[in-house]
């Protein structure tokens, strides 16, 4: 009797050890295609189809740092750090856009896609997936991670030297130039990406014609004073080069409706509000989202969170963009990002369980589904404490 008792306790201890081993190994990336239908082995977004909807794929760590920098929402980024891997769910809107991008006729004017949906339904992550695809497909990325950072939380404001009544956000512009450079490092060194005209910054400083785009960008980064001007020049050059067929460009702007929302939190010295159309950066990106160039595609999101809280009334594009914004983008392809489908929710919960992030209990998925109303963000928040 005593013997068998000790044996049992030994076994239990051994089990615990086994369990512990599993836990520690869970943090390591692993893939077992047979047992995990919530995961796909297809980590290449070029090959994602509707069959992969609801499945997670892994973004390599190095790519994630470069291409999706700032593209993931903060809370999701923290979670990826906890999980020790960046996984994105393949969802219908992103597959839809990728499918459209594959079949686009790039000799025709640029097509605009507008992602819209309720708060926390996964617009930014859909965009991240599209970005990953675009990077793989060899697009030059013009990516603004979150427009709210400029319009609602600017670093610094100075009046423009070249334009009367306009204002520069030079620190933000320079930060964006760094981001743009790191995202497109491998493409920018191509010899055909040269400036089409001379850019004169001041009496002594200028970027001559036929210098590489990298030089132009570096000038903006090194001479903060000209950062906003440099973004304008870069936008113009990119349009020219893309039109000429030297590169394919994908413009991705998150929170695009902030460009048309008059009540920004950019203040002059006397606390007067600067409307977005008086900010030089706006001009550059509005020019990039027009349809008057080809070889390019434009994906933007309209988000309630990009505007002041008192105006969170509707998540539809016409309301968020306003008349002016709608006319600017029209005709655009609205892409609705819905809440999770039951299949996606199960897949998400399976993923969390595999990561040992939530512990299983019976009827867990049903309860969480009704508590979160299938909203991805709410589900993530609910699972933090489980």
């Amino acid at each position, binding site marked *: 009797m005593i013997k068998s008792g000790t044996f049992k306790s030994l076994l239990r201890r051994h089990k615990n050890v086994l369990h512990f081993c599993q836990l520690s190994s869970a943090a390591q990336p692993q893939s077992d295609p047979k047992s995990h239908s919530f995961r796909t082995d297809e980590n290449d977004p070029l090959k994602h189809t509707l069959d992969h909807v609801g499945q997670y794929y892994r973004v390599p760590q190095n790519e994630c740092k470069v291409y999706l920098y700032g593209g993931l929402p903060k809370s999701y980024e923290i979670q990826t750090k906890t999980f020790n891997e960046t996984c994105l769910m393949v969802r219908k809107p992103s597959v839809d856009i990728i499918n459209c991008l594959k079949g686009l006729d790039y000799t025709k004017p640029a097509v605009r896609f507008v992602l819209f949906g309720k708060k926390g339904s996964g617009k930014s992550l859909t965009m991240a997936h599209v970005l990953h695809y675009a990077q793989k497909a060899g697009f030059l990325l013009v990516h603004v991670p979150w427009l709210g950072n400029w319009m609602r939380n600017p670093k610094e404001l100075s009046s423009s030297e070249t334009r009367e009544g306009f204002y520069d956000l030079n620190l933000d512009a320079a930060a964006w130039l760094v981001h743009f450079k790191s995202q497109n490092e491998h493409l920018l060194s191509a010899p055909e990406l040269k400036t089409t005209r001379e850019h004169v910054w001041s009496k002594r400083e200028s970027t001559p014609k036929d210098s590489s785009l990298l030089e132009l960008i570096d000038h903006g980064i090194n001479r903060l004073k000209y950062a906003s001007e440099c973004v304008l020049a870069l936008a113009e050059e990119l349009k020219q080069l893309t039109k000429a067929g030297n590169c394919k460009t994908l413009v991705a702007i998150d929170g695009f409706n902030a460009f048309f929302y008059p009540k920004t939190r950019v203040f002059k010295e006397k606390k007067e509000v600067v409307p977005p159309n008086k900010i030089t950066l706006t001009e550059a990106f509005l020019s990039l989202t027009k349809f008057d160039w080809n070889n390019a595609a434009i994906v933007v999101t309209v988000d309630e969170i990009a505007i002041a809280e008192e105006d969170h009334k509707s998540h539809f594009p016409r309301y968020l963009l306003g008349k002016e914004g709608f006319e600017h983008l029209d*005709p655009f392809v*609205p892409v609705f990002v819905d809440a999770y489908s039951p299949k996606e929710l199960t897949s998400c919960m399976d993923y969390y369980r595999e990561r040992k992030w939530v512990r299983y209990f019976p009827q867990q998925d049903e309860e969480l589904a009704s508590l979160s109303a299938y909203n991805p963000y709410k589900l993530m928040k609910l699972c933090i404490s489980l």
Partner: protein
Amino acid sequence: MLSFSRKIDKTAFRALEKHLILAYSTSSEPQREEEFRVLNLKHVKGQTVQRRSVRKAEIQPPRTTQMPVDQDWGNVWPGPRSFHPATVPLPIRQGYTPTGVAPGKYANAELMKIPNFLHLTPPVIKRQCEALKKFCTPWPKALDSDEKCERFFPLEVASSDYCHSSPTIRDPLARIVSVKFKLGVLGLEGRAKDKFLRLVGERYDEQTDIVTIVTDRCPLKKQNYDYAMYLITALYHESLNVEPWEELKSEADMEVYIWENNASKTSIEALFGKEAKEIENVEQYSQAVVRYMNEGENQYTVEQYGDAVRKILNLPPVPR
């Protein structure tokens, strides 16, 4: 010694006193009538007034108890009158008590407050109609359907006459004239119709297409009728009239979104580099935009718009 002498004094005094009182009482006997009368407010004793006994009216039993079953109700209750429990042979209850049943019909103010139609029972109405029949003219035979009535007599004029016993035979309410007609019979189109609707405002009912004009500002019915006719004429001609400032109406003043006047058309023309008419599937697209703008934003209109854009730009449809 001292106390003893005092005692003697006392007894002597008392004897004297007694004697004196006796003497006084005997001497005051004839002066009694002149005694000062005391005012006694507490108890006034006087003659009690004889109370008249209240003669109670003799209460008749309720009339309902003596009513024959086959009586003519129109004669019992000939005109409008507030409820009377003894006349109405119905076991009616009305009102509310927190405990128990609703109060009965006797001494029930609630029943007297509400208007009743006991004077307008179906046989009475029938009898009154029969009596009025000899004053009526026959209905025109040709007007055998509602459509014909509406076509030949598009105008409907209504006013009221009042007849009751009062010192004056005039009732101020008799002056009010209301005129109704269908807007369709005026034959107004587009701009003129829009102007007419703006002029009449809330007098137009969209569901039935009827315009109602009520005039009551003149003292007489005839005057009000003439004024209503004048108003209709003025409204008609004014809405056909184009004022110079009406030409200044811009896009922002439009009550509905018209695709042809908007930036949407110019941008799609610029996108394709040709006239809107020559673009394929432009019809569906323009309709989708118009519906999107006019019906307001919802999941359905956005989806329709998206489908139209995908079609015009030759993109694959949304995966369902």
